[in-house]
């Protein structure tokens, strides 16, 4: 935030400053766990029902045009 010159003089302080700037970044245990938690959810297999739903919506489209 402040004192960028000081950061370059003391590398450790600079890195610490990075951690503060991004409190959920890779230096943060919470940040890492959060991503692990979320990535697991994102990589879960998507059930067919969603693709089927979109196909159904697509087919229903001409009928919807009336109203």
């Amino acid at each position: 935030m402040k004192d960028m010159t000081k950061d370059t003089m003391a590398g450790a302080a600079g890195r610490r400053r990075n951690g503060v700037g991004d409190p959920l970044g890779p230096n943060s245990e919470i940040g890492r766990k959060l991503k692990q938690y979320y990535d697991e959810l994102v990589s879960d297999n998507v059930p067919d029902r969603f693709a089927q739903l979109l196909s159904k919506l697509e087919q229903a489209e001409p009928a919807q045009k009336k109203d």
Partner: protein
Amino acid sequence: MAAVSQGFKTDLLGAIPSLRAFAVSLTQNADKADDLVQETLVKAWDKHESFQPGTNLKAWLFTILRNEFYSQMRKRGREVQDSDGIMTARLAVHPAQHGQLDLKDFRGALEQLPEDQREAIILIGASGFSYEEAAEICGCAVGTIKSRVSRARTRLQEILKISGEDEYGPDAISAQVTGTAAR
């Protein structure tokens, strides 16, 4: 109503994994999450004309999903939240290569957060949205998101008994130097 373009449909399909992850984060229940995603897709389809091409589709969809979640919650008088931890049990079966126990603890801690804090920390820390985008999704000020994220983080640290990691740099610094992120 103008025809929904093939591209829009493809983009919707592509957004489903993220939508499901966000829905699970909000509901803490896999079945309710999928119902929520289904509602979101139907709504998005119906109002596709209100989506501005070139803007962030994921943010637009997350907004719809979130509104749907809170309106359902109001209707049901807050029973959306799964207090029996069914989700925790279900997800615990999910195979993971590392940090299984840790992650289970983390899930439990996340469940204890109030919804507004949980969604804020998920949007910022996991879904990859900026504070500005998250504020738009939640319909609140950027400062509100910042304070929710900060409170969520402090609370998680308390629950998980992690000391203020970046106030006292050593852990963070050694992790960065040695690259031992996964511990």
